């Protein structure tokens, strides 16, 4: 795993079609941590599934899945689009690129009505904090002396994360493995995991199955079928189990067969850089700002046309 790299590097992302990259199925030796996360999340979406995705990383993962191993998956966004094939990174939940090839352009209530009806297979959400039962907080960090009304940090709020965790077939959570993020006591429960343990979701009659996988910048976690407690499924390359344990406030269960998270292939990395040519999401850089309006517009347009060409070539 590498840190910041030159986007014009050897991945081939910016030279011709990403599908033309040499040795596409080989592990990439040049990828960022964020790219590893995006690829790991994308692989959670199976071909043919209805995938309910939000902004940022989760949308990028959905788009990547659709352009790689899951061409028949269908992306659902909460603002009202279904089936779109966004030719590039999506900047907002109503990004007009979501209209591209979309089969349905409807409204937010309709999407969540369908979600509550149990029509969507997998959702991907973000969170600021999580506990061992997979309950998440994306509303407030109260700190020792704060409260909901007067928090230390005000986070964006639920968005669709509460609704997805309540009703989607299964949910993937993507978040950063910061200190106090994997906590024994959430400051606020925004989205329901397994609440206080086995049977709790059933008591509320939730339509969805709850959290299935948690993906962070250090590791991948699953949930025990019996106890509903989180366990460590794999660590990312270069991270060992103890490092992860230190970043978790409770006594973390570890899979007997804990593995190393598979790294992205060269094709996946190349495709990601085509989707996000200005590094808006993947590298979290200011490049979009630094390059100025004209170069930004040219880069966006060039990459859209490239992706559309890939689709046409299929």
């Amino acid at each position: 795993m590498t840190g910041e790299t030159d986007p014009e590097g050897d991945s081939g992302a910016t030279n011709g079609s990403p599908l033309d990259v040499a040795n596409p199925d080989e592990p990439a030796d040049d990828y960022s941590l964020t790219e590893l996360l995006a690829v790991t999340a994308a692989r959670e979406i199976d071909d043919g599934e209805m995938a309910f995705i939000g902004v940022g990383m989760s949308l990028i993962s959905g788009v990547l899945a659709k352009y790689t191993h899951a061409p028949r998956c269908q992306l659902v966004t909460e603002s009202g689009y279904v089936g779109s094939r966004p030719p590039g990174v999506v900047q907002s939940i109503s990004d007009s690129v979501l209209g591209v090839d979309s089969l349905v352009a409807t409204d937010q209530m309709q999407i969540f009505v369908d979600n509550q009806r149990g029509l969507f297979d997998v959702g991907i959400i973000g969170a600021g904090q999580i506990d061992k039962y997979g309950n998440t907080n994306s509303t407030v960090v109260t700190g020792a002396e704060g409260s909901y009304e007067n928090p230390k940090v005000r986070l964006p709020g639920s968005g669709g994360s509460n609704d997805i965790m309540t009703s989607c077939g299964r949910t993937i959570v993507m978040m950063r493995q910061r200190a106090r993020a994997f906590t024994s006591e959430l400051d606020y429960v925004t989205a329901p995991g397994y609440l206080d343990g086995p049977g709790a979701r059933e008591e509320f009659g939730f339509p969805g199955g709850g959290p299935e996988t948690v993906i962070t910048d250090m590791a991948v976690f699953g949930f025990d079928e019996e106890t509903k407690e989180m366990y460590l499924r794999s660590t990312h390359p270069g991270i060992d189990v103890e490092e992860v344990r230190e970043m978790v406030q409770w006594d973390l269960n570890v899979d007997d067969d804990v593995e190393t998270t598979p790294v992205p292939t060269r094709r996946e990395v190349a495709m990601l850089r085509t989707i996000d040519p200005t590094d808006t999401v993947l590298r979290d850089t200011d490049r979009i700002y630094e390059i100025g309006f004209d170069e930004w517009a040219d880069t966006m347009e060039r990459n859209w046309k490239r992706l559309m060409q890939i689709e046409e070539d299929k």
Partner: protein
Amino acid sequence: MSDTHDKTQTLQTAISDHVPDGASIAFGGMGGRDPEAAAREIIRQEKTGLRVVDDARTTLFDAMVGAGCVDEYVGSWVGTSLISQGHNVRRAVEEGVPKDLTMQDVSNFGSSLMFFAGAMNVPFVPTRSMLGTDIAEHNDDIEVIDDPFGSGEPLAAVPAATPDVAIIHVQQADRHGNAHIYGNTVNDHLKVRAADTTIITCEEIVPSETIAESPELTKIPFYTVDSVVEVPFGSHPWHCYGHYYADLPFYREYGLRSQDYDEFQDWLDEWIVPHEEYLEKVGADRLARLEELEQTINGGKI
């Protein structure tokens, strides 16, 4: 009343007529088709004590909070989407700068349903969302009720939202307020019905004959509308599906400059100007390039 008179106004008059200090407001769009020009006009007219009753809100809300227009927010999500946090929102909630902002959370579905309940004139609509979490716990307006049909399952009763004003930006509308929405509708068709008063800003005023050619796209009917304003590029720096792509660099600059409160004041001085002046400052070439980008993506859809 059907009110089939000419409802066109200038942006300045629409805001001064229909948005008094202290009003509760719902804005349309969601990171696309947001009524950014209308929100800038609200800031320009120095409205205060507003209550924003809404779904997920991005730049326009953050700027209004930073300018001191807003006292309270009821909704599902605040930030400025992908490339920056909502710095003004955080400053207001965490530090009371420039003043305290009271937050009342719902989920996204909850926000749709509160407008739906308002639109259909019932006190509440039930859902399974928000149960078992602190959203229902901390939002005093949400009641957890038992299924009256005896299933034993609890339900979250989402109370009706009936904002004073809904402000919605669309691609085209006629002079009576019949508005076509291309692409996604988000919650806009619900907000105009829940609100007492509705202002439509649009890229283009079209004849009613154009509306009648695609009546399926009339998501907002004239009988819910009080004011119609033609505002080209009224969603800039956001997207307007079929018209122009989002101006991400402009938006990114907002994200960077709003990190610091003084710097944000400079941003306000620079950009809170009458809409025509705003567009001149952005520049015709830049606007044309955004139209061209959208044409490449969704060309021919409108």
